[in-house]
């Protein structure tokens, strides 16, 4: 019998700091963008610093916080040791700062930041695996949690090896490891996690029912295999194997997009709130990212296509999917903690009343226009366009921060 009791739900005081800190890192990453130009190389330490600020500080911190809440919902059991999340956040937060300083200021600090991040992720993955062992269900989302966490461990171990290599502690081929690391973390953990969670969350919030899950099953299997193939291809240095992996992943993502389209067609709620708008922009960005990515793959030595593709994937797709969901998840958490005990005793607010709609809309518009402008700046190698977009993104991030503070403070 399915049951998620209140006992399974982690307290707000455990989860809220993840969302607060994640949004602060997001704001910092948009501010830092102003220091960059529209042309760069991925091997630059400054770029690596920004990528880690965004991916570790914003994406990972928010995903970990969301997983603290969602793992019991998805697996239909309580956490194995929920209190470990109190340790995960400071380790990940301080480790991220250490790594960013390491990339930007002094590479000797990198391994220290890296070891903290590594520890936090090992704790996170171990706790997730321990919780997985308790569940009796076997849905696509459960499978996702298992596979994506395995890739997280592999990705972070290669990342730690790179940190040791960059600081001069060990001799490794950083370029080879870098590709394997990026693919394992970004494709293996972030993409698979988003694929799995969105299959639970998007139908839940849009009230879509009775859809066929064959496409997502195929998509999930193909992405999981494709990431593994690219990872191995990168480590052994065989281009053909890597290409095979890229192609497999691409087809898998195609199935995922088709699944989202099926869900969209069955959506009952047609209201275009900040969540719905963010989903539309996010998936539009994913499609754009794939198109530009394919152009890059068939036209070598056109780095600006690669930069644009990655931009729309990271900021447009991942960023909007996360930020859009914050406007659903955070009000729910606050409502659950502060208002659910009052049901039947006094009037309680509806969830949609618990986020500032004006500021949420400002966040959406500044961020979406900013993302598009900066993306165009990368595509046409225009610093003016890129920085204009980054400025708007930063204003959007300020609105997100204000919204987050208001949502978390609602009814306090």
């Amino acid at each position, binding site marked *: 019998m*399915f*049951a*998620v*009791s*209140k006992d399974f*739900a982690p307290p707000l005081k455990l989860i809220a700091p993840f969302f607060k800190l994640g949004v602060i890192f997001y704001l910092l990453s948009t501010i830092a963008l102003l220091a960059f130009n529209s042309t760069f190389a991925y091997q630059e330490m400054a770029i690596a610093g920004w990528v880690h600020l965004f991916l570790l500080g914003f994406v990972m911190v928010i995903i970990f916080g969301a997983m603290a*809440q969602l793992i*019991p*919902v*998805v697996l*239909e059991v309580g956490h194995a040791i929920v209190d470990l999340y109190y340790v995960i956040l400071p380790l990940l937060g301080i480790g991220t700062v250490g790594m960013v300083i390491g990339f930007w200021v002094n590479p000797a600090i990198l391994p220290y930041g890296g070891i903290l991040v590594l520890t936090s992720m090992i704790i996170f993955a171990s706790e997730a695996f321990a919780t997985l062992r308790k569940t009796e269900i076997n849905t696509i989302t459960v499978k996702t949690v298992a596979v994506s966490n395995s890739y997280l461990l592999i990705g972070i171990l290669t990342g730690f090896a790179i940190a040791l290599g960059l600081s001069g502690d060990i001799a490794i081929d950083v370029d080879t490891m870098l590709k394997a690391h990026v693919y394992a973390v970004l494709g293996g953990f972030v993409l698979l996690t988003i694929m799995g969670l969105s299959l*639970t969350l998007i*139908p*839940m*919030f849009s*009230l879509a*029912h*009775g859809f066929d899950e064959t496409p997502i099953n195929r998509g999930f299997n193909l992405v999981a295999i494709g990431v593994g193939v690219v990872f191995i291809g990168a480590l052994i240095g065989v281009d053909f194997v890597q290409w095979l992996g890229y192609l497999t992943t691409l087809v898998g993502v195609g199935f995922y997009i088709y699944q989202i389209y099926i869900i969209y067609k069955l959506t*009952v*709620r*047609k*209201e*275009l709130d900040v969540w719905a*708008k963010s989903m539309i922009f996010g998936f539009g960005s994913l499609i754009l990212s794939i198109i530009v990515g394919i152009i890059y793959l068939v036209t070598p030595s056109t780095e600006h296509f690669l930069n644009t593709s990655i931009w729309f994937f990271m900021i447009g797709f991942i960023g909007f999917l996360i930020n859009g969901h914050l406007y659903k998840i955070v009000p*729910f958490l606050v*409502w*659950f903690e502060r*208002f*659910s005990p009052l*049901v*039947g005793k006094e009037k*309680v*607010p*509806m*969830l*949609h009343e618990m986020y500032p709609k004006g500021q949420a809309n400002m966040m959406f518009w500044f961020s979406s226009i900013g993302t598009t402008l900066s993306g165009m700046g990368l595509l046409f190698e225009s610093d003016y366009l890129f920085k204009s977009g980054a400025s708007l993104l930063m204003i959007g991030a300020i609105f997100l921060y204000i919204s987050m503070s208001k949502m978390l403070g609602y009814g306090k």
Partner: protein
Amino acid sequence: MCNITKEKVYEAISTVIDPEVGFNLVEMGLIYDAIIDDNCNVKVIMTLSTRGCPLHQMIKTWVQEAVEKIDGVGEVEIEIVWEPAWNISMAADNVKEALSGGTPSF
């Protein structure tokens, strides 16, 4: 003989609002049946709009408490079922209209 009717049970449950969508559970079409025996024991058979609903346990409790407020009611049992799965055609017309006709506001 018990004088509690199915309508009375539905009326009691209609005080329970889904905080996500803002409609009560009866107009959402989530209540499949209410069986009342001669001793006024009530069994409510219901579903939820999403299987992974994090409010599962709480909604069950709210329905139980709402039915227990009916005068003369005996034991109250709530059973959550997943077959048939809920879909929007089960909801009242006002719910269908409100959800599908949400004013697009870009």
